[in-house]
């Protein structure tokens, strides 16, 4: 099992965000699905220790994530937040920054291609891209680390329908080209149905169901 969450609790500003939550997330594409405010994004942040639970454990392949060196963990288990937040400079600057963290030399053209961006984007100022382009640049930047797992927080929520379909296609294609597991947070059950092998449904800070996507969500329709 890739991730196991064991009786995890997390509260913020006096509100219980995750309440005795237990869930398993296998390799492949897992969707964490549920309504807004149900604690999905918080769950995702626990997986690469952007936050730690106040109680319970998060296991990565059977070992507590807190036993791992946190920076190395985040370079293997890389999170792309819901809203793009690139550094100042060009797209290539951003890719190089990430690659350097992992001690790599980035293949900029290939990274852009994997994220569905034309090679010309390398020289573009990150701040001047559209939200959809920035989101793809964020994906390319995460891929520059060559992570084992990508944690994607609502990667299409800021996009219109056409752009959403294109990003989904990019992610599915990515799975075919690169060995990477994906944990994708979404409030959109149709997206979960299209993308996921495995689904964890979260409501009010509790995992209410988990299993193969077909079992949990039924077939499209």
């Amino acid at each position, binding site marked *: 099992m890739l991730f196991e969450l064991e009786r995890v609790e997390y509260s913020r500003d006096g509100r219980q965000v995750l309440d005795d939550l237990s869930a398993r997330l296998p390799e492949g594409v897992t969707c964490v699905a549920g309504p807004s*405010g149900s604690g999905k*994004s*918080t769950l995702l*942040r626990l997986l*690469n*220790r*952007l*936050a*730690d639970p106040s109680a319970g454990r998060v296991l990565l392949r059977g070992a507590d994530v807190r036993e791992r060196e*946190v*920076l*190395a*963990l*985040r*370079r293997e288990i*890389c*999170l*792309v*937040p*819901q*809203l*793009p*937040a*690139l*550094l*100042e400079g060009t797209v290539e600057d951003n890719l190089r*920054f*990430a690659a350097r*963290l*992992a001690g790599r030399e980035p293949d900029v053209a290939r990274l852009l291609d994997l994220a569905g961006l034309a090679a010309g984007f390398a020289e573009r100022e990150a701040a001047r891209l559209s939200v959809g382009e920035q989101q793809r640049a*964020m994906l390319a*930047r*995460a891929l520059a*680390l060559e992570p084992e797992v990508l*944690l994607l927080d609502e990667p299409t929520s800021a996009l219109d329908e056409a752009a959403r379909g294109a990003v989904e296609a990019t992610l599915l294609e990515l799975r075919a080209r690169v060995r990477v597991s994906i944990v994708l947070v979404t409030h959109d059950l149709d997206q979960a149905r299209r993308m996921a092998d495995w689904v964890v449904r979260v409501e009010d800070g509790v995992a209410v169901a988990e299993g193969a996507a077909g079992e949990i969500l039924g077939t499209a329709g």
Partner: protein
Amino acid sequence: MPAGGIDVSLGEVAASLALVVLAIAVSIWRRTELEGDIAVAVVRSAIQLVAIGYVIQAIFDEDSLLLVAGLIAVMVLFGAFTARRRARRVPHAFWPLLVALGAAGVVTLGLVVALGVFEAEPRYLVPVGGMVVGNSMTAAAVALNRLGDEISDRSREIEATLALGATATQAAAPSLRRSLRSGTIALVDSTKTTGLIFFPGTMVGMLLAGADPVDAVRLQLVLLWVLLGSVALSALIATTLAYRNFFTAAHQLREPPQP
């Protein structure tokens, strides 16, 4: 350097209150509601300056470097308390400020004495120390104020950088750079324009006291350049020590961005 000889009688001091009356009149007329503050400012400035005047006189009479060190330590302490109020969004800002002001004072005074710019006498160390601590306090307060805003306004960007496995230092680097810049830029700008659109205080004071303009200018240049160094040092130390308080040991933001 010439000691200068100017006598200001109490009557002359009192006469300058006419300008305070003007300030209060403007406030009342235009309803800026600053009358109370102006009055408080005038009373406080009189009491504080008279008191510090006696303290400085006592230190000069004693001619004791230990007393100089004590006075500067008190200034550093009050400076750190005052600056902390401007840096409310920075957790535990007091210690970084105290270290920054203390280090700026010690290093700057130590250097000017070691380089032979001033002699190690209370007559030089007290006024220069006061200017150094005062300017360092402003710079550190402005820098930390900006740092608090930066880290809170850019928490998404910072966390996105942490999410790649960057250290807290790497993730905060752009914010630190901007904070350090805003702490130092005011003095850099005023140094650039000095003599053109404003006359700095030391020079004004020396000219009023009857000093030779060339001497006044030389002393003013020494002080401006000394202050540039101390202000940069103070803002650097304050921001470098303070930014860690925004992060946990595991490179997590203590106040993560709102979802």
